[in-house]
């Protein structure tokens, strides 16, 4: 099958293909562009931020654990922790985070370890929300809104939407395909940025039902520019955004002779596995379209492992590690512009339950992958696992506010220096996580 590498497509090609598809002359609307946002004074150097959210509270202790810690060994059966010897030993991490502590990585995370070893991936231990919530939904929401706690009174104004949405407002749009979520709907992270698109999958294209007639009718039913007749402006605007996305994306996707969207082949090997792979493949396609992507939000679920954790966790780590490495290697042309950061709402209880699983805990971990990252290191501050060191005597304590890591990424990679808007009420600490090369 003739396959045109996506990287060969540039914005001009996309415009040409749109014109060929008749989209640019199809009537009012497209030119007025739901995509375009008022530009701010920031230079657009094409930086791309990918936020990968591990939903369900990922068990850090089963991912990157202090394999030789006696408390750790006592708290968990062997299949829920990292071992320092034997057939299933964890991968030893080169780290000076805590002298004498042998941090190991899950044995299924070999592909991730390779990136770590190359110096592109940094890991910050014991991150999260400073407060003590162990509710998934409260913790996820706070993290997506960029908060430490639910604000009261006037302080709550303007904090309903996501921090990524506020970041985008600050960065300004460039008339492109600016913000994407690979979930079916728009996640809280992007709520408040009206042009945010949800695009779970591009493997079957992103066409409209019913062909050209439908397209022409929808152009008029969802005219954009605030002219809609609907009672609910959100519906009109969303329809317009979906319509524009369908036209742009569908025309730009490379197709085989049978008209079907050509299979995506990541460069430099590897494979996109599972749901996380499908999502990262979608983001990789969008990045290669060079259509102005600034922020992509990717979810990976399945981490709420209260029961039978060992087997499920192994599979999830394998998919996550392999897909992330594939994504990074595939996009080698974009490394200078690309940063990926991971979050999870919390980690799990240090002590396992009797269902072969773990319950909601506290301290978690964040990973930062990207150009300029001073990787190959565990960063942050390891609080230790002695009873008095634990949060509420049961969980890994949080020593680095999750916003500290995000702010560092935003500062070094996107040139953001004012964090008040993005993370209301947040003042960056003095502790420099030393995430980036000078």
């Amino acid at each position, binding site marked *: 099958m003739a396959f045109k590498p996506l990287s060969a497509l540039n914005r001009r090609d996309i415009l040409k293909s749109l014109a060929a598809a008749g989209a640019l002359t199809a009537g009012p609307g497209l030119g007025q562009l739901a995509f375009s946002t008022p530009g701010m004074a920031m230079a657009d150097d094409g930086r791309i931020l990918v936020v990968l959210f591990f939903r369900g509270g990922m068990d850090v202790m089963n991912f990157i654990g202090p394999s030789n810690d006696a408390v750790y060994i006592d708290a968990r059966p062997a299949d829920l922790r990292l071992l320092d010897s034997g057939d299933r030993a964890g991968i030893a991490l080169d780290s000076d985070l805590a002298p004498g502590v042998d941090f190991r990585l899950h044995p299924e995370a070999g592909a991730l370890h390779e990136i770590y070893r190359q110096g592109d991936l940094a890991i910050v231990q014991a991150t999260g929300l400073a407060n*003590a919530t162990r509710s998934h*939904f409260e913790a996820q929401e706070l993290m997506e809104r960029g908060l430490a706690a639910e604000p009261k009174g006037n302080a709550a104004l303007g904090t309903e939407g996501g921090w990524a949405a506020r970041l985008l407002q600050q960065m300004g749009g460039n008339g492109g395909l600016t913000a994407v979520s690979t979930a079916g*709907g728009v996640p809280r992270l992007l709520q408040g940025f009206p042009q945010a698109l949800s695009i779970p999958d591009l493997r079957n294209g992103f066409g409209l*039902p019913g062909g050209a007639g439908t397209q022409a009718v929808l152009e008029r039913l969802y005219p954009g520019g605030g*002219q809609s*007749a609907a009672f609910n402006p*959100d519906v009109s605007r969303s329809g317009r*955004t979906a319509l524009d996305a369908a036209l742009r994306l569908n025309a730009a996707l490379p197709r085989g002779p049978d008209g079907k969207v050509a299979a995506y082949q990541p460069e430099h090997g590897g494979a996109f596995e599972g749901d996380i792979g499908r999502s990262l493949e979608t983001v990789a396609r969008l990045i290669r379209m060079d259509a102005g992507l600034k922020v992509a939000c990717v979810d990976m679920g399945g981490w709420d492992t209260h029961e039978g954790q060992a087997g499920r966790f192994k599979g999830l780590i394998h998919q996550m590690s392999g897909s992330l490495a594939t994504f990074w290697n595939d996009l080698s042309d974009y490394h200078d512009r690309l940063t990926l950061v991971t979050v999870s709402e919390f980690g799990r209880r240090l002590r396992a339950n009797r*269902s072969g699983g773990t319950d909601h805990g506290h301290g978690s971990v964040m990973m930062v992958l990207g150009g300029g990252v001073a990787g190959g290191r565990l960063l942050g501050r390891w609080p230790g696992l002695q009873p008095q060191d634990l949060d509420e005597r049961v969980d890994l304590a949080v020593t680095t506010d999750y916003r500290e890591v995000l702010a560092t990424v935003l500062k070094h990679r996107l040139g953001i220096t004012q964090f008040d808007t993005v993370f209301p009420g947040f003042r960056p600490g003095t502790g420099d996580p030393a995430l980036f090369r000078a």
Partner: protein
Amino acid sequence: MVVSTPAPPSGAAVPPSAEWIFLNRFAYGPRPGDATALKQQGTARWLDEQIRLAAQPDPAPETRQHLDTAVLRIKYDAGDGWAALDEMRPLRTLGQPVDALWQLNEPGRKQPYQERVRPRMELAAATVIRSVYDPAQLGQVMTLFWHDHFSVNGADSYTAPALPAYDLAIRTHALGNFRDLLEAVATSPAMLIYLNNRSSRGGAANENYARELFELHTLGRDAYLNTQYDRWRDVPGALKGAPEGYIDQDVYEASRAFTGWSIQSGQDLGGYKAPSDGRFTYIEGWHDNYQKRVLAAEFDSYQPPQTDGHKVLDLLAAHPATAHYICAKLVRSLLGGEPSPDLVRAAAATWLDNRQRPDQIARVVRLIALSPAATAGWGARPKRPLELVASFARATGTPVTASEPLVGVMDSAGQKLYAWPSPDGHPVSDDYWLGAQNMRARWTLALGLAEGAWMPPGLAASAQMGPAAGHSGQAVAFWSDRLLGSPTAIDAGALLGGLDLDADAPPRVDNKTGEFANRRLAAYVAMSPAFQLR
């Protein structure tokens, strides 16, 4: 020829009639004539009849007939231990007890995924059929509300065999008493599997169910005070025996109360092997029998079997925070938009006053439905995909039956019936429902139903239209009246302009079906912003 600039929208500033709005909120939209009938009958009598219908143990004959004749494709390739299959199969799992389906889940038994999760597909398909045809519309709306409130992912092969029994349990109590509903859920194999309580044992209990019981099923997140208080006695009201909310200590203790609430799944219980049939069981040997304290109430050691768990359910069901949280969610779900605090307060008072009554929930729903807010604020909330599908089918008479692709498109429009991946149920937020992918799939639903993409022959348009069938402008007005409650609710000029059709000309007719243009016009009216709203 088309004009290049669309005419300014007309007509749409006028909301549909109160009856129209009401039937989009407390039913799955009006069929032709329903709004007029409701106006004659009055809302109170309509509610009496709906509450009576919902209490019937058996489905209405017409519902029964549609369910009995439905067939749903099941198709898979040959695999390890099974042959390839492609057949149209009746809905056989509906209403089946868990033991009748438990073999779908048996460890070591080789079965394709499609067989394992068949109950979810059948229940989703049956739900579409019921929402279109079941005369007990309010019961259907409330059953779905509680399924989302007590969300279980039935696309998980472990929970799937227990899903039909779960549906029956929820359906039975949907307009009944909340404490009864709560216990039916707590002892349901589906929930015991989904939130892992089945494996919870004393020593280090599994906290999953207890946590979501407090946060999602009863008191709600606003009553989770863990970031403010470390000890139970510090929670306001606790020392008087009436704590305002809960903290992690309550969750830990409640999880101990539910240890031993399990299902029979062949466990080795010390010389005795439990049967493997998925039924609820209480395993005394797994229960943590020592004293507990939940919401400032003391539990003595060594209570009779299940007493600890029952007591937790009693405390939670009776708590004012539960009344407030669920009533606010009910008002928001039924009416859309920000709920009026006065209405929520009134509903919560009714909830608490009637907590011993068998029709507690019906009384609360009745209060909401008879309030002025019931028909105010049109358009505040987008329809969910099922509401879109059912209201289209009901308004146009498009025949609907079981269909795997239809369920698939509803899925990609955001409504994963019985398959939401986390225990919080589908989001209330409009932003979620209006993502680009979800919008695209909504349009696909309207067009696919009208054109019979999944259920041929689709909408029999012309037969219903009379003279309007031969006149494009009148045809749009006809479908606007049917779908939006007024012939002028849609901008006909804009719609016809997109099709390059003159309002006075007849719609172009497809030679094969004689339907193409008229049913497509109906679909386009349904793809408009106005039809997305309720």
